């Protein structure tokens, strides 16, 4: 009984041990299975990642291919554009040369225009000078009346030369003295008889030369002669028949100009001649009146 009991006990212990080992084995297997499951899951994830990577790689390769095609196409385009740029540069250089040539032409034309403008202004000035000389001559010879000729001289001095202070002296050949014939704006009392060769006025009558005072430097003379601006001897052929003395210019008239000198030359001969003609005409008229 006891042995049987012992046997039963031993069998139970064995069974329990087997059960325990089985359980342990099962536990270990379950642990291994779990581990393997984790490994499989990891591998699955890695596989998926590899697949994703492979897909991305394929896409990248595809994109790369596309970019290569684009690059090739761009290369062709760049070559074409480079060629165009070369053509345009050549064209631009041609245009630049053309522009330079045109600019040179324009500058030439502008210089020519300036030259013509300047010449035109000169001609206009000459025209107006001639007009003044023509007017003066016309006025002096437009009458045989002495009063009119004297008035014309006064108007020429005022309107063409710009003086409102002057005197007309005529030579008395017998006494060789200049006598006041008319004064324009000048006090007659200040214009005494002037012996030929005396003072600036007398010297002008003596030499027959036109006198023009230096601007700002009045002549070293006394009385009204110290205010002299110009003296114009009246010349009939080689004889001096009188003097026009100019004592000042209008405020706006700065100085004696080239045209004034030409007018002085004209007055010197034409005024003398006009005055002589009035005298001659008066004599002829008197003679005709006496005879008829």
């Amino acid at each position, binding site marked *: 009984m006891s042995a049987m009991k012992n046997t039963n006990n031993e069998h139970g212990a064995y069974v329990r041990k087997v059960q325990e080992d089985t359980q342990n084995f099962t536990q270990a297997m379950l642990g291994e299975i779990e581990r393997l499951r984790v490994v499989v899951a990891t591998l699955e994830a890695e596989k998926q990642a590899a697949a994703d990577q492979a897909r991305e790689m394929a896409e990248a390769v595809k994109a790369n291919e596309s970019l290569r095609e684009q690059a090739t196409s761009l290369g062709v385009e760049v070559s074409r554009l480079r060629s165009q740029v070369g053509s345009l540069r050549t064209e631009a250089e041609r245009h630049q040369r053309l522009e330079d040539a045109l600019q040179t032409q324009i500058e030439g034309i502008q210089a020519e225009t300036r030259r013509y403008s300047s010449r035109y202004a000169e001609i206009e000035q000459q*025209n*107006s000078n001639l007009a003044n000389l023509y007017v*003066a001559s016309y006025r002096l010879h437009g009458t045989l009346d002495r009063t009119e000729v004297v008035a014309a001289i006064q108007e020429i001095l005022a309107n063409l030369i710009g003086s409102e202070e002057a005197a007309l002296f005529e030579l008395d050949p017998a006494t060789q003295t200049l006598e006041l014939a008319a004064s324009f704006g000048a006090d007659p009392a200040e214009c005494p008889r002037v012996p030929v060769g005396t003072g600036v006025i007398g010297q002008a009558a003596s030499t027959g030369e036109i006198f023009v005072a230096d601007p700002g430097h009045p002549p070293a003379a006394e009385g009204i002669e110290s205010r002299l601006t110009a003296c114009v001897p009246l010349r009939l052929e080689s004889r001096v028949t009188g003097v026009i003395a100019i004592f000042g210019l*209008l*405020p706006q008239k700065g100085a004696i100009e080239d045209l004034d000198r030409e007018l002085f030359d004209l007055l010197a001969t034409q005024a003398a001649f006009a005055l002589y003609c009035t005298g001659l005409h008066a004599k002829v008229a008197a003679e005709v009146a006496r005879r008829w």
Partner: protein
Amino acid sequence: MNKKKILVVDDSRTALFMVTTLLRKERYDLVTACDGEQALEMAAAERPDLILMDVIMPRKTGFEACRELKRREDTRAIPVILVTTRGEGENVEEGFASGCNDYVTKPINAQELLTKVRDHIGGRER
């Protein structure tokens, strides 16, 4: 086309002759008067495009004639350029006070005169 008409007024025959010689070259139609009174009559009768008038004249001075021209309805619009012997301030002021549009001084500079005439009535023809 009608030429533009200018009335030139001056008692000096030399000045009148000089100004008309200059303006005739520019092909303006010219009428003349020799004093302020006659200028008023001519302005009313001729209706010029411009009046160029001396200041110092018998019967009526340029200032008086200008004032009268500017007072009258029918001549008020005609531009007047006065020709003065003196270019000092008070003379110029008196000129503008009389209603003149511009002035030139004697001795007349041809280019200045023609420029002012063109400024007021433009070219040669209307």
